[in-house]
């Protein structure tokens, strides 16, 4: 669908927030509301270069007709997007993908994000703090330095206890956010970790550490994965990652776009 840019602002060098409006953009083709962890495929302009759409996670659903994305200008596609001004058109496909699962019985959500990885986790925080008051969320946000710790203020405004870490110590604890996560779990696990789930998105090494921690503590970890994508709807088979096939005990390829982008971290062959 053709959507219009409402707002497109640079947060800091190369990181942008864009609000996009179109009738029904906040719902999928069946009328189901876009859910945290889902994504959209965006195309700017009619040129064949760049050719492919760009996948962007739902950052916040503002209404049924308006969604927000947080993106980093990484290549030509996002560079073109960053130059759009209010009123400009962008071609949007979505919402796509599975989204973060919240199985019955989840009472405590540990949200772990690194850098731009906070993009889909904000939507999860919105959902949990708004519609699932039975779940308490706690957030762990890391970045290279203070600028890269995105979304911490918004998390706190939602009443979510939020821990921060930076590699250079410019904000929060100096070091890796996964250390803070480990400490937190060690401190609180005596109350029992049944009903806990960890939701993670961020740099690959961080996701690996989070998955290992989750395994060590016996906590479910749902992780949002990234991959090069062409179609975003399950046809091209270009975006696969290796995932454990529990039935056969071997690894198989699964599509990030429509088998994911959220996977049970235990199944991912890191």
């Amino acid at each position, binding site marked *: 669908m053709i959507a219009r840019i409402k707002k497109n602002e640079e947060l800091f060098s190369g990181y942008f927030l864009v609000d996009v409006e179109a009738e029904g953009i906040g719902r999928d*083709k069946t009328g189901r509301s876009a859910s945290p962890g889902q994504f959209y495929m965006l*195309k700017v302009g009619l040129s*064949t*270069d*760049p*050719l*492919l*759409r760009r996948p962007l996670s739902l950052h916040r659903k503002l209404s049924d007709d308006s969604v927000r994305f947080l993106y980093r200008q990484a290549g030509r596609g996002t560079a073109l997007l960053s130059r759009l001004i209010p009123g400009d058109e962008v071609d949007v*496909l979505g919402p796509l993908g599975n989204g973060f699962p919240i199985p019955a019985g989840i009472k405590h959500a540990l949200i772990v994000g690194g850098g731009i990885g906070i993009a889909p986790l904000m939507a999860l925080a919105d959902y949990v703090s708004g519609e699932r008051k039975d779940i308490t969320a706690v957030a762990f946000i890391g970045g290279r330095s203070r600028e890269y710790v995105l979304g911490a203020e918004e998390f706190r405004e939602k009443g979510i206890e939020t821990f921060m870490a930076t590699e250079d110590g410019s904000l929060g604890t100096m070091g890796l956010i996964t250390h803070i996560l480990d400490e937190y779990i060690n401190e609180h696990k005596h109350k029992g970790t049944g009903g806990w789930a960890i939701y993670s998105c961020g740099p690959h090494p961080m996701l690996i550490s989070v998955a290992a921690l989750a395994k060590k503590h016996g906590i479910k970890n749902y992780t949002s994965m990234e*991959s*090069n*994508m*062409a*179609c975003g*709807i*399950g*046809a*091209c*088979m*270009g*975006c*696969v*990652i*290796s995932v454990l096939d529990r039935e056969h005990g071997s690894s*198989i*390829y699964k599509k990030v776009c*429509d088998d994911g982008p959220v996977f049970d971290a235990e199944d991912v062959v890191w």
Partner: protein
Amino acid sequence: MVKAKPSLEVSIGPLALKNPVITASGTFGYGEEYSKYFDLSLLGGITTKGLSLKPMQGNPPPRICETPSGMLNAIGLQNVGVDNFIEHKLPFLAQFDTKVIVNIFGNTVEEYEAVTARLDKAKGVHAIEVNISCPNVKKGGMAFGTDLDSTYEVIKAVRNATSLPVIAKLSPNVTDVVPFADRAAHAGADALSLINTLLGMAIDIRSRKPKIANITGGLSGPAIKPVAVRIIWQVYRAVGLPIIGMGGIMDASDAVEFMLAGAAAVAAGTANFVNPLAPVEIIAGIERYLIENGIDHARHIIGQVQA
């Protein structure tokens, strides 16, 4: 005076299509994904993702990367296998009023033959497209399509194993496609699909690694369009078989260009990834072109380039 709508019907040898627009193999899965976006009965035909005798896992990731006005892929023919396809995918496709062209490949001539024999007995298959041109698998694929005798042998074996129309999908990764088209014709092919992807490569200059794990991959998209048009024109003039033209077709203008070069039908491939509605928009656009130019039948533009 109100003019009658032009006829979009074309024939690929014995295969009659209600319009010239097909989906290219490997870009449309087995139809399920795109059925959420439009009624597949609108299509002239659907060509399925390539099938082998046994299921295949495909190549390790990363499998794709974008290139100027195109993309490289090395999916490695990941597929569910012919038996699973017949049991689970074909019934879905059979409910639509469109022609189902099943793309096949094998590691040996015998495998091509065996896959064909299974499909020949299956209900709902209208034609077989023989892939002898995939650049991304070690055995089979392009190894057959870049050798004249192997081309003949594979097409002949498939021809003998089925009474369905046989379409040979040829490789552009040879100096001259015409002799290959000629051999395919002599082996009994009813039609040709031109072109498969061009072998390409891209390197990440920071990591100094190839951008896809297979190192090389197949280049598709608008970047290869002029190459496809040229090959179709050359083969159309030299060989009598009907051609399904493909290679970077993004819109109706591209489709008409391919038909003028000699394609009797066209396939949307990479375009499906960018715009799931591309094939239906192309059908509408071809019709508009015919009306605007006072042409009453789509087949009247085939090969009509004034060269």
